[in-house]
């Protein structure tokens, strides 16, 4: 009687090979899920940081102070450890109807480049840049 190969069952079906393909697919899906999860978590972090930076800029007295406040918020956020290189923040503002800083709006744009390797957990080339923008009305009153 011929002994069946390890990769065939008693009926001669190549079940083990199919299972192996499925296992590899599931492992790849697991890695991809981790990648997406970390990417999404970074996106939330960039969104929150841009909101915080825009809010900090909106309560500053002058555009120069606002720019400094926004950059300080981004530099002190947890993004500094996640982005490579460090996250960048740019600020733009719209004056009020009378042309003044107060009463206008300020927009902060935060960009964070993360290496794919740090997202997937295994070696992978390239990187992704996540950019989020938030706009806040500038406070009319000085505290």
């Amino acid at each position, binding site marked *: 009687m011929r002994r069946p190969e390890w990769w065939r069952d008693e009926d001669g079906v190549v079940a083990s090979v199919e*299972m192996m393909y499925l*296992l590899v697919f599931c492992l790849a*899906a*697991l890695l991809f*899920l981790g990648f997406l999860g970390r990417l*999404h*978590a970074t996106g939330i972090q960039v969104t*929150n940081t841009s909101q915080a930076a825009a809010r900090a800029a909106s309560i500053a007295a002058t555009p120069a102070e606002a720019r400094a406040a926004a950059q300080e918020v981004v530099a002190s956020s*947890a993004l500094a450890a996640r982005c490579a290189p460090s996250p960048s923040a740019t600020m733009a503002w719209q004056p009020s109807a009378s042309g003044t800083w107060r009463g206008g709006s300020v927009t902060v744009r935060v960009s964070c480049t993360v290496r794919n390797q740090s997202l997937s957990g295994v070696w992978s080339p390239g990187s992704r840049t996540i950019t989020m923008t938030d706009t806040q009305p500038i406070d009319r009153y000085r505290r």
Partner: protein
Amino acid sequence: MVAVVLVMLLLFESVAYWHARNVYDEAAAEGARVAAAFDGSCDDGVAVARAVVQRTAGSWAGSLSITCIDGPVVSVTVDGRTPGVLGSALGARASVTETAPKEG
């Protein structure tokens, strides 16, 4: 076959983990925002974060711990269990910290 089933369960567990982490992240961010407001406090931030978790994940979010550290940068950490796919005992723990600059 058993390995495939285990990996698939791990896959489902991962989805549950990331979902839980997103909920806790949202709660921590909301709590930090409230605590960092000009008239806000850490007590307010913790209460808001707890309310967000209760509203969106009240049925499965267990042993929730929310801490808030006041200062020039307010930090809110939400730590809790994730829902286990095969039972609550199999869930992992997720901890998320969000920060916001204190206004004023």
